């Protein structure tokens, strides 16, 4: 696909936010990370651990809260971008994407502008190890390695590849022996065990459904996964559940539940409940908000805050530029604009979903913090919903150090790094590469900060 530059919509300031004169900063940081998704939070945790005075600032919560709670590096071998309807066969493997077993084997031959190619396999491997270490220290271990994807069941009964996954997920690996028994939870509208079971069986996996009642279901309101997760955090609730469910689980090899087994004490909830029920339990991610994603966010937030960093969520953030130099950010708070100065700025604001990219009109794209130039293809949307969507590759073009580039290929701000979903050149959804890109580019950017090599 040919990528071309789209001019920004703010004609007076083609590249860069409006310059302010004479304003002074309210605080000084070594590093400001804009964006609180996985990329931003991981970068914040790494930098704070190395002793950098770190602020993570974001308009809202990021991708963790709508994700699966796994770290995906490369999941699919996509078909050519636009298969003709005649080519679409009825078999899912023909129509959809091939599942990848070994992510490392796939990322060796990416185009040089792909974010994972910019980071490189070594950086990626180190990043995954760092992330696993961080989660391990927070008693929420993630299992897996770069050579093997877990094949995990979805709430529709499709198979979803994931590189790193929490212990509570991998019992559901579909290629492992043992029938998958999925729980119907009456009164809970976000999980349909029968549908998932039927689809798993169609694909040749042994599966069945069983009805399990949740104790204390409130009579007059909708049930949310986050509510139930908090109930499971308490030992008394788990004891009640175990008492009600235990006898129904005779002969169950593996029990699948929607991902709601605890928020603050998830690893303990999973172990305790498995012990009490005498069954191997696995969780299946469901509709947002994502309980397992929130666990990852909480792990990262506490890692940042316990090492002296700060996380501020709420204000909208724009870049602060003085004499052509990026000096910090301006946060629009309820009490007015606040200016924060920083030596380094990491942009981890994500793509369209999280506001790093905005599309003011059809086919137009702009970057929301520094109004950086954005590359986008000539075509934006595919005719069919589930096809690869060309717009997904839009983003900010960077050099090998992740600094944003202008149309001529010159570095715009040498102290600004772009990481995660804001980077051009990847179809994160189609590739199943989201967390791989987030983690690898975070690690690379933090390693590039002068004076903080830990």
């Amino acid at each position, binding site marked *: 696909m040919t990528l071309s530059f789209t001019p920004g919509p703010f004609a007076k300031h083609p590249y860069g936010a409006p310059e302010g004169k004479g304003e002074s900063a309210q605080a000084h940081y070594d590093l400001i990370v804009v964006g609180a998704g996985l990329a931003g939070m991981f970068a914040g945790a790494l930098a704070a651990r190395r002793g950098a005075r770190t602020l993570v600032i974001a308009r809202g919560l990021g991708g963790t809260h*709508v*994700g*699966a709670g796994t770290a995906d590096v490369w999941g699919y071998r996509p078909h050519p971008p636009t298969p003709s*309807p005649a080519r*679409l066969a*009825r*078999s*899912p*493997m023909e*129509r*959809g*994407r091939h599942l990848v077993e070994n992510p490392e084997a796939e990322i060796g031959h990416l185009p040089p502008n792909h974010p994972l190619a910019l980071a490189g396999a070594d950086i990626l491997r180190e990043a995954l190890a760092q992330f696993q270490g961080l989660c391990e220290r927070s008693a929420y271990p993630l299992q897996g390695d770069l050579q093997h994807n877990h094949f995990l069941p*979805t*709430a*529709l*009964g*499709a*198979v*979803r590849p994931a590189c790193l996954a929490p212990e509570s997920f991998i019992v559901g690996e579909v290629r492992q022996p043992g029938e998958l028994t999925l729980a119907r939870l009456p009164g809970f*509208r*976000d*999980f*349909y065990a*029968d*549908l998932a079971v*039927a*689809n798993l069986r*169609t694909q040749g996996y042994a599966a069945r459904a069983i009805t399990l009642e949740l104790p204390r*279901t*409130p*009579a*007059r*309101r*909708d*049930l949310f996964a986050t509510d139930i997760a908090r109930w499971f955090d308490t030992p008394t609730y788990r004891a009640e559940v175990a008492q009600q469910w235990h006898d129904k689980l005779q002969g169950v090899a593996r029990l699948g539940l929607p991902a709601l087994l605890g928020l603050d004490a998830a690893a303990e909830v999973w172990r305790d409940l498995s012990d009490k029920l005498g069954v191997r339990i696995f969780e299946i*991610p*469901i*509709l*947002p908000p994502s309980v397992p994603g929130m666990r990852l966010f909480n792990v990262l937030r506490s890692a940042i805050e316990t090492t002296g960093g700060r996380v501020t969520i709420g204000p909208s953030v724009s870049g602060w530029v003085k004499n052509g130099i990026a000096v910090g950010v301006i946060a629009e708070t309820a009490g007015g604009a606040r200016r924060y100065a920083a030596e380094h700025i990491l942009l981890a604001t994500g*793509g*369209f*979903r999280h*506001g790093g990219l*905005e*599309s*003011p*009109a*059809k086919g*137009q794209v702009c970057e929301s913090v520094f109004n950086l130039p954005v590359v986008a293809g000539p075509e*934006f*949307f595919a005719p*069919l*919903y*589930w096809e690869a*969507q060309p*717009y997904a590759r839009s983003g900010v073009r960077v050099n090998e150090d992740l600094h944003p580039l202008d149309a001529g290929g010159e570095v715009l701000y040498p102290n600004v790094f772009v990481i995660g979903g804001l980077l051009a050149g990847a179809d994160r*959804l*189609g590739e*199943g590469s*989201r967390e791989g890109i987030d983690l690898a580019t975070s690690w690379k950017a933090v390693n590039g900060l002068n004076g903080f090599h830990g």
Partner: protein
Amino acid sequence: MGISTEILVIGGGATGLGVARDAALRGFKTLLVEKGDLAHGTSGRYHGLLHSGARYVVRDPRSARECYQENVILRRILPSAVEDTGGFFAALAEDPSEYVGPFVAGCREAGIPAEEISPSLALKEESLLNPKLARVFRVPDAACDSFDATHALAESIRAAGGEAWVRHKLVGLRLSNGRVTGAELENVLTGERLTVSADMVINCSGTWAGKVAALAGCEVLVTPGKGTMIAMNSRLVNTVVNRLKPPSDGDILVPVGTVAVMGTTEIVVQNPDQYTIEDDEIEVLLTEGEKLIPRFREFRVLRAWAGVRPLFKDKPSSRSTPSEASGLPLGEGDSTDSRLMSRSHSILDHATRDGVEGFISVVGGKFTTFRLMAEEALDMAGRKLSTERKCRTAEIPIDLPGKKFYTPGKRLKEIESSGNVEVICECELVTRAQVEQALRRSGSLILNDLRRDLRLGMGPCQAGFCAYRAAGLLHTLFLTAESAKKGEISALSANSAVKNLDVRATNSALLEFLQERWKGLRPVMWAANLRQLELDLNIYRDLLGADRLPTLREPEEYPTERTA
């Protein structure tokens, strides 16, 4: 399998339903067949305006008079679907002042009450309107939800002893000795064929009327006039607002339920089953919207769609270059621009016209005048069958007793006063019980039908959350073959495409539902919609892997949904 009826109606839009209701109320044994769902064609794709007739007074006085007459009647007999919003005809400074004289005179001649009000009063009532209004007239326009109206009509047909079958496609007309004696039908879900013998077949297939007439060897030329609309994600006005100028693109804004619909464009298309919504149509609607309501573009557009008007003129229309809208009365033979073609209807007796007995076509016309078209068609049918019976449709309410005007607040009230209801679609407040009931009733295993029945997936999240839940409920219903035996889902077992419980049918229903939503979203995909798209794609392609599931068919192969 063969059955017989007196009147067979082809087409389940407003016209066909109106005709079937009229026939049933006159005591004829009546069957209506529709290849898709009720209001699947143009009736379900219009802007929601119940015309006062004022739009037509200058160029098409017959349509104007008919609209006003029917407007008054429908308010009385269909209160569950008609909201008395009232309407403005508002002229901006740029609009031609010479149109006002003929407009006022036309309204007077057609008997349509049009009262001039001061621009300041209009602004007081509709504060988002452009403050530079030149002149404003108040007319008795109203809003009419066509999904609600067609459902009410179908219930009323059944109450009068008639039948209305959806997903039954006409594959042939039976002819003997120059007379149509019945029809050959196919259940599109099961492939099952059946024969219906009928004393009279009435073709109400709108834009598709030519195809149906051709089955009897008759030539009927219907010009498909595509009109594109956009729904804004908020009710920007509470009054229908028309531009006071000759009819043109983007001249109307209609408040319907929780949205406001900006319409329409007008483009003649070759094929009513295949058309696309062009970027420049959306641009015209936004530009005209901006004139009526400053900063219109900053509001979120919810979706775009197009309907295909059945424009009829009983001779081949010679279309050359579209002429400028002149504001002149519609004369014979000046059908160069489809916008200048009459919105009036014709009832064709194919016996006198083509020498084919037992066959009537109802062509042209508009939603507002469906009842009148039905009355005229049944008057003709009665004469032809030598059993003239009095039309009663203007007196008997369409709404069954107890049916009330629907407001979104009604659902909220029901939810709050009942127990744990499990809201399946948060945007439109659709509960689990409603989804299950609608699935049982429709028996079609098509999630798209829930959109028309319940407005499921019509809100701002564009089915992101409810599609999975509805698919889960659909599959659970399907799976319980035992409940089918008990008669609980008899419709499913009788009508189902899938004799054995095949999950691929559920997967197809889900993907088709999502693809149908995507068609409406793709033309308006920027700002918040693009953000929403990424969230929804993340749910269906990543979290759920819906694109990798086996299906019965690809959505574009789906038999009755058109590909835009």
